[in-house]
């Protein structure tokens, strides 16, 4: 039986539904011939800023139970050097998504314009960055800020725009809807969870910035819940991520309503994690006689699968879940 992994995310088409998440796969130039890049839908490069950034002092990364915390501080060569020196070295077979991070609206607009070149397939707007205008609150915490940011970026590029949500937002669904209204072609989530680790010997936080971002299998159940909620609310395709380590994990995100997934921390454990996950998805599809991956998208939702990638996702908006299920702690919920 022929398995089709081609994944359509609105204007963006990928050869596989599994993307390398920003900041966890470098620039796609580090793995040489050891990793089969043809299995990777796209590489989302490490977040880029206008000027080069040297990043945070060590420690930048620690291990937590089934997860990792990082505070890299967006070390990157800056958009210009990236385009001149790095981009040409990325294997041609690999689709490139440019992840941009700014402190002001103008930063993002300039970044978007500069990155809008043929070799780049899409932009991912990292809204988890502090917005200087609003006393450094992250853009992605506030629907209005996200709406304006998305609209501005969208206006300054012809490329598909992915808005990447932070799970630390008071209301992720509201922010997702704001991004959609702002013109986002695709929504991706989740970024890392704001977390803390304390060095009890030194009696102080482990990270110089006090907090750091938590990712990895530990947080997958929460990320999956958020993806389910967002996919149920927006009409545009969703890229789900957060803790994916195995094909089974990826399938959960697809069945929750994500049209594609991204894998981050798992690349640190195994640089060949993504090809392995893609193979596992293929095996599952063969076993379950699923010919096209889009048939799995939303398969676990009450309203059943729907090929959101191809944009017939209206059904999703009409989805009405019992607010009890969605908003209250599961503790109090007894089955009707």
């Amino acid at each position: 039986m022929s398995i089709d992994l081609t994944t359509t995310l609105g204007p963006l088409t990928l050869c596989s539904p599994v993307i390398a998440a920003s900041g966890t796969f470098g620039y796609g130039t580090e793995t040489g011939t050891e990793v089969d890049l043809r299995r990777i839908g796209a590489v989302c490069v490490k977040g880029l800023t206008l000027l080069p950034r040297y990043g945070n002092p060590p420690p930048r990364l620690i291990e937590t139970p089934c997860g990792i915390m990082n505070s890299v501080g967006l070390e990157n060569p800056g958009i210009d050097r990236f385009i001149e020196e790095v981009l040409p070295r990325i294997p041609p077979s690999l689709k490139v998504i440019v992840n941009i991070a700014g402190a002001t609206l103008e930063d993002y607009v300039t970044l978007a314009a500069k990155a809008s070149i043929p070799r780049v397939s899409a932009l991912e707007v990292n809204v988890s960055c502090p917005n200087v205008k609003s006393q450094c609150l992250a853009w992605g915490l506030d629907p209005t800020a996200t709406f304006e940011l998305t609209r501005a970026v969208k206006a300054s590029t012809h490329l598909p725009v992915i808005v990447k949500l932070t799970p630390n937002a008071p209301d992720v669904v509201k922010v997702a809807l704001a991004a959609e209204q702002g013109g986002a072609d695709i929504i991706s989530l989740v970024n890392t969870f704001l977390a803390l680790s304390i060095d009890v010997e030194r009696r102080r936080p482990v990270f110089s910035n006090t907090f750091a971002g938590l990712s990895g299998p530990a947080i997958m159940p929460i990320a999956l819940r958020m993806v389910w909620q967002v996919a149920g609310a927006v009409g545009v395709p969703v890229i789900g991520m957060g803790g994916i380590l195995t094909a089974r994990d990826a399938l959960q995100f697809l069945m929750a309503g994500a049209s594609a997934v991204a894998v981050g921390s798992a690349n640190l454990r195994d640089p060949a994690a993504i090809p392995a996950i893609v193979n596992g998805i293929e095996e599952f599809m063969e076993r379950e006689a699923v010919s096209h991956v889009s048939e799995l998208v939303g398969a676990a939702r009450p309203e059943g699968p729907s090929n959101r990638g191809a944009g017939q996702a209206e059904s999703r908006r009409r989805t009405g879940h019992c607010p009890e299920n969605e908003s209250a702690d599961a503790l109090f919920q007894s089955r009707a």
Partner: protein
Amino acid sequence: MWKQENAEVLEVERLLDEVFRIRFRADRIARDAAPGQFVHVLCSHHHSPFLRRPFSINRLDEDELSVLFKVVGEGTRLLSRVTPGQTLNLLGPAGRGFPVNVSGAHVVLVAGGMGVAPMPALAHRLLAGGNRVTAIIGARNARYVFEADHIAQCGAEVLVCTDDGSAGARRSATSMYRSLPDKGDIAYACGPLPMLYEMKQCVVTPLWLSLETRIGCGTGLCLGCAQPSGYTEDGQVVYRKVCTDGPVFHASEVILLEH
């Protein structure tokens, strides 16, 4: 370029309660490996510990390599329980090792504690390259002196020192180095940060240091292993990656803070 390999465990030696040597058959990795590089070992079958664990290449053969390690946490505990015949996923050779394309030189190796791990492969390669090698091995006490005989058998001059004098001189590896009449042409050091810091202060010849930081991916993907290496004009700290730019750095490439 590193490779990934499911390496067969050939032998597990217990040198002390908490110190082990594991010998692997890992031809793809061993073939290209150089002294001072490391292998990044997947210690958990499941997902905890989540990350791999880095270990210097201890001894090196055409198709075999070994690691020498101390059990300090869960990853090394799991590693210490493997049995011959099992396979472990290794990633390597990773990072940049010691410069070994020297010849006709007198090279001084300075090792502190588990920092002796890379020295056998290093001494062997340097001697094969027609160099003269003096190896200073410092340890807490006699029980923690590893590889001295092996390195001597390779043809190096070995000087042992311990904190309590239970083996060799009763002094630190660095003071032993300072007391050398002939400091040679170049020095390679591996050990605890305070020792590397001291070495950097006192060494006159070219000096290369093998550093340890927490390693994430080990392949340059995550930028998690930053080592301060200099400053920009406007005084910002610039970092190098221990996993790919290192773990071996020229002393002038890194900023070490006194501990």
